[in-house]
């Protein structure tokens, strides 16, 4: 065999490896970003850095869980940011810095998330409009309601107890939020990989017609994925409010795009049917590390934006390219 064919073989095998082990690739990218951060700013090797990165990754990984489910099912949920902001405001308004309201806040927030998720699901699935536009329109309405109900004024704050369960550093490094992750992550893994619902979700995303023919209730599965997304986003809003201590309208709107990109970088595709939560967690880590790395460059704002865009496109090029028509 000539050298050229060995090279070609190697590259095509490498390409195949990249395409099939997307979650691993995301972890690999995260490690590269981590090393780059330490090279650019050696003083980053400190416990504040690790604590913050873990905390923010976990907060992002929660709406990313819901987004993963929705994307696997073949939809898209743009309402994640609006629901997070809404429950964050609910948290600070109800708690007003006093302990003891957590259960009340928790149940109302979950209810809000479930209702919005249900509306999202029904409108995207039953009515047949593109999921992106519909969830965006509903997110707009949720956002406007935030303003009307609060009159645009921020007041109140999360209770100190709740803030401690999120930000307190165990051994001085690990933020207490890992306790929440220890509950939510395994549940998500179980739902996606082990439960019957998860298997049906993958089937629905892969080939809805075939899934329907085998007796899977396609619409119901999809709507449930939206409800999951709403509930998870609502819970993330509570934790986010505890992290920020105060909240204002539209505070977490950026999480709509952030969760989407994190999930895509983690290997899930818009077409549905593939993806894993491990990849989404790795994708969340990549997003947080990327933002941190860009800040450490100390660039003026326009240069930072341009660099952010270029890196994002490079990341997408790695393994998010759809199949060519020739294949």
């Amino acid at each position: 065999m000539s050298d050229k064919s060995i090279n070609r073989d190697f590259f095509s095998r490498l390409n195949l490896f990249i395409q099939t082990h997307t979650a691993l690739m995301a972890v690999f990218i995260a490690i590269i970003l981590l090393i780059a951060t330490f090279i650019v700013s050696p003083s980053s090797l400190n416990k504040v850095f690790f604590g913050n990165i873990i905390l923010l990754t976990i907060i992002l990984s929660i709406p990313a869980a819901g987004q993963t489910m929705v994307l696997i099912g073949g939809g898209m949920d743009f309402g994640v940011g609006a629901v997070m902001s809404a429950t964050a405001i609910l948290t600070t308004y109800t708690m007003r810095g006093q302990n003891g309201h957590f259960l009340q806040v928790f149940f109302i927030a979950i209810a809000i998330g479930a209702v919005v998720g249900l509306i999202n699901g029904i409108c995207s699935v039953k009515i047949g409009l593109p999921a992106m536009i519909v969830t965006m329109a509903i997110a707009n309405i949720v956002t406007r309601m935030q303003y009307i109900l609060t009159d645009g004024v921020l007041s109140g704050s999360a209770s100190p107890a709740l803030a401690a369960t999120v930000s307190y550093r165990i051994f001085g490094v690990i933020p207490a939020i890992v306790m929440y992750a220890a509950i939510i992550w395994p549940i998500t893994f179980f739902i996606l990989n082990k439960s019957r619902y998860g298997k049906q979700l993958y089937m629905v995303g892969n080939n809805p017609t075939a899934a329907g023919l085998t007796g899977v209730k396609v619409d119901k599965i999809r709507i449930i994925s939206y409800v999951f997304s709403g509930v998870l986003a609502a819970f993330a809003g509570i934790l986010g409010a505890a992290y920020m201590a105060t909240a204002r309208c539209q505070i977490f709107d950026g999480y709509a795009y952030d969760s989407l990109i994190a999930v895509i970088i983690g290997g899930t595709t818009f077409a549905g049917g593939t993806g894993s939560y491990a990849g989404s967690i790795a994708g969340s880590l990549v997003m947080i590390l990327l933002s941190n790395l860009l800040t450490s460059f100390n660039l003026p704002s326009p240069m930072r934006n341009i660099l952010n865009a270029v890196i994002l496109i490079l990341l997408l090029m790695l393994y998010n390219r759809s199949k060519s028509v020739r294949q």
Partner: protein
Amino acid sequence: MAIRESLRRFRRKPAFTGCMLFIIVLILNIVVQGWSTCMSGGVTAENIFAFFKPSALTSIFMSNLPFILITIGQALLLIVGQMDISIGVQIALVNVVCIMVPQTTGCPVWCGWLVGFAAAFAISAVCGFCCSVLRLPALLVGYALTFLIQGINVLIMNVPQGTVPMAYWKPYQSSVYKLFNNPPAFLKFLDYIPVAALVLIVVLLIWHFFSRRPFGKHIYAVGTNPRNAFAVGINPVSTQMKAFLIKGFFVGVAGICLTLMSASGNPLQCEEYGIKSLSAAIIGGMGWGGWGSISCGVFGGGFLVLIQNTVYYFFTLLSKLVAGFTVSSYWHNFVSDLIIFGGLLMTIVTAKEQRKTLQQGLKAQFKRGEKNVR
């Protein structure tokens, strides 16, 4: 009979959805604006039709033409199965270039416009390259490019600044009648035609030329099923790139109109136009690839524009009807968004005819296929 037949044919066109919604909002707007003006100015024929007052018509056309043009561009991209949410900041790029090039190099204004067009084509080519050639997800490419273009905008122009000579923006902001120096009285009806409307008509005529060529059919083929189109010999990549470049032309015109409307430059404007134009196109009746037409974009854009105007006059009217009524601007925005959501849902009613058409077309394809097999 002929009328009923052509009406039924029209109902099957994709633009029917947008047209119906547009007409409903237009009537609502005329009524509310007229009523509101009558309340403060007294009931006269002029006030009842306050919507059609030349200054009001000109103002609404010339300030919203950039948005309508980019909705048209977005509709074109939707036909070929792509989308571009950075289209808003792209017109800001054209605006910034059109101002800074004459300002820093001293070349004449129209030179700056040519460079602006070149910038629009360049950035559309980049977007097309990422979406068609590299086949990256269009939504995220648009998101990334928004950052890129905003960064470039601020690098070119760091603070809002600049002017445009009056000789350029005065004609754009007036009606055809006012273009003449001493027009004869019988041409007064031209006062009701804003120059911006002429610009829109010219752009649509240019598109009409393109749509008559094979390209006009290819975009539908590529949008519906790129693989099948490739099998028939249509190159999806080149068709999509051409679509992006034509969209670049629309963006260029929109950017120049924006420059003439504001007579200045602002690097950080129009970001939200990207998503809004997408919503507007969908409300106008566009589908995701292969379904819809440019007129969907026109009607959808018009719908969104008139909604803003209607809500504004509606609340002004309410404050005149009910003494001491003031409502925070949060309600304005809430009602606008609720109506837009309602508009989206209404598309399914008006789309009933089209779904029938689609089903019939699909059935015909299968049936024909069977005949051949036998």
